[in-house]
């Protein structure tokens, strides 16, 4: 059961309330998305840690129902 872009966005926001989230559907099959997530919570974190935070927000769906999520993460410009 693939995921819906809005569902992904909602889950990320739930874990990172201040985040700005932009989701692009790469293949139209509900399985391949690209997401850009910007949040102050990423400050001081390595890229791996930032991505792990987003994967954590998706509560185990990443790699399961959600096959691919090309992630770009960053900290808001001061």
């Amino acid at each position, binding site marked *: 059961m693939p995921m819906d872009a809005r569902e992904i966005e909602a889950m990320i926001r739930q874990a990172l309330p201040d985040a700005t989230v932009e989701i692009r559907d790469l293949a139209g099959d509900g399985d391949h998305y690209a997401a850009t997530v910007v949040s102050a919570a990423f400050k001081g974190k390595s*890229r*791996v840690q930032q*991505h*792990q935070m987003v*994967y954590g927000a998706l509560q*185990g769906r*990443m*790699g*399961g129902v959600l096959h*691919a999520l*090309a*992630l*770009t993460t960053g900290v808001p410009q001061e």
Partner: protein
Amino acid sequence: MTDVNSRIETEIQSQDVVVFMKGTPQFPMCGFSGQVAQILNYLGVPFKGVNVLEDMEIREGIKAYSQWPTIPQVYVKGEFVGGCDITREMFQSGELQQLLSEKGIATSTAAA
């Protein structure tokens, strides 16, 4: 679960650069694994491919080991660097080349 972790440790320590991937370096079976192999080949960096499609225990064990839910996974000198996105981003920004040279791993092109 411990013996899969020790098997993973052995793989990770077996060569400077190790990639847990779907397929082999010559025949990647997934676009993302293919991208990582392409980047490392472009840089002329020899790496060991561990084909997780042939070993379900490692396929699941590596995700718990690194707390990273997807394949491919890139390790340099035993350290987890990231998946496909991070490796590509680091390559484009030159961070990957810098990390490799810091770890004493030669890259063939002087890719800026």
